[in-house]
């Protein structure tokens, strides 16, 4: 390699580093700004000459947010509905996916087409009649309503994720389990599910995120009792509310744990996001 080429190479790799660095800064800035704002004293939050870092670090906003918002309750509601709907939808969805993967039938194919269509239907469209159904069942403003709705939103997603996974497992696995005297369901529960744990984990993480991050369904189906965090957060924007410090603090509390957790388990997240689009 000539000296000139070497030089050219260093310059271009420096350029790559520089550009990446700039983009990283640009993408991280909004969130860092949120976190920094939550640590500012109230007057600084809405200062007309905003700065990135607070002049004094204070936990005031975090203390105040409990007065403005029943944080613990909303947090609990979000957590409960997300966990419950994830468990139910992952179990029922993978059961269905297994059935569809192992026995193909006309009915099954129609069902598969239905799950695909559901992916394209805007949530707001079904939310309108869903509201009526939930009301009729007497479930308005209950956690059960949200669990039922999140479960049915997540099931088609779980089916699509898990069908690919089950298709990749050799049929001999089921057959040997059956020879050993397992029923179909037994083979599924004892053999197939444990082998599919990585796929299940990825799917569960995404189901959880979908429920946890939902705003629209929470907005339409709850009022006080079952309200979730996103809906609670959105209410800061109602009326003339200039006390935005607690809002930023609550937003940090809502998003920070998830952010840290997702960085820890990013292997699953990356595989889940690229699963649909990139064939290995």
């Amino acid at each position, binding site marked *: 390699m000539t000296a000139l080429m070497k030089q050219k190479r260093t310059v271009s790799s420096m350029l790559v580093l520089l550009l990446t660095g700039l983009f990283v800064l640009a993408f991280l800035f909004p969130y860092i700004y949120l976190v920094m704002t939550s640590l500012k004293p109230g007057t600084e939050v809405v200062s007309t000459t905003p700065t990135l870092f607070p002049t004094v670090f204070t936990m005031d906003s975090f203390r105040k947010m409990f007065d403005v918002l029943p944080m613990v309750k909303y947090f609990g509601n979000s957590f409960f509905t997300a966990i419950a709907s994830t468990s139910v939808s992952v179990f029922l969805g993978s*059961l269905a996916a297994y059935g569809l993967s192992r026995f193909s039938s006309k009915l099954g194919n129609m069902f598969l087409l239905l799950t695909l269509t559901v992916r394209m239907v805007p949530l*707001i469209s079904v939310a309108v009649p869903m509201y009526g159904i939930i009301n009729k069942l007497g479930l308005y403003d209950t956690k059960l309503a949200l669990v039922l709705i999140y479960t049915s939103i997540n099931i088609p997603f779980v089916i699509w994720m898990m069908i690919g996974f089950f298709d990749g497992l050799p049929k001999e696995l089921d057959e040997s389990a059956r020879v050993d005297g397992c029923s179909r369901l037994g083979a599924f529960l004892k053999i197939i599910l444990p082998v599919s744990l990585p796929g299940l984990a990825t799917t569960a993480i995404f189901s959880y995120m979908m429920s946890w*991050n939902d705003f629209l369904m929470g907005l339409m189906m709850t009022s006080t009792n079952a309200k979730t965090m996103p809906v609670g957060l959105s209410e800061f924007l109602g009326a003339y509310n200039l006390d935005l410090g607690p809002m930023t603090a609550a937003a940090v509390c809502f998003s920070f744990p998830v952010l840290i957790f997702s960085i820890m388990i990013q292997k699953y997240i990356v595989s889940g*996001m690229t699963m649909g689009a990139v064939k290995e």
Partner: protein
Amino acid sequence: MTKSDRRTALLFFSPAAGFMILFFVYPMFLLVRDSLFDSKTGTEFVGADNYVNALTSERFYKSLYNTVIFVVGAVSIELIIGLILALLLSTGFKGSNFARTLFLSPLMIAPLVAGLIWKFMLNDQFGILNSFLFKLGLIDSPQSILWLSDERYALLSCMIADIWLTTPFMMLVLLAGIQGISGSLYEAANIDGASRMQRFWYITLPSLKPVIVVAVLIRMIDAARSFDIIWVLTQGGPNFASSLLSTMIYNTMARYNQAGYASALSILFIIILISICGIFMLRLWNPNKKAV
């Protein structure tokens, strides 16, 4: 397949099917029914009146137009930035894995929180973006761009928030696609003395095409359906400047309480989305044609 096999299969997917019938098929049926009844009482059959009203309403076309602008604008910028980021990271420099992790962070943030963050940053009184532009000398005063309350900028502001939130998804998928391209192609190109630009145009881009199409399709569907960000930032205002079909349906339902009209709008929205996806997919999966 034996009869008992068929029965087992049915057993396996009937619980899931039950859920979907109760919370998707049945609501769809209700939606169609409601769309044929009047908006005030919901008891009088009005035929296609709601559809006629929608298709002759200026607001519907305005929202449809905004939705198209929002989807096309946001997704194409996401594609361009996502591709640049994927290419940068694919050079595999020291620390590129760490950079990828950092880029992932917006993806894990709820759209609602993303909306709140941008509402804060774009505020015309204490927003940091205007103050930054002012310090750079690009604008005359920190209050001169009303990002959220000026009709010219409202939709753009929503797009900025969406781009921030979902470009990382684009980057991630494209990066996986680039890493899946066989290295031997590049080696062969190197032997032939191809320049960096040529390698990009003749190897990377064509090999990446199927991945790009799928990623764009996924993003288009999700962008068209998005509601949270727009709701937090502008609620579709001012004067419907950032009204998308999703916010228009919500407003029709929740503010004006016109269930029949909202249902008709919903049906139209579903038809439009599914037919666009259908066209996309037919082109993608038709074995007789070359893939897109």
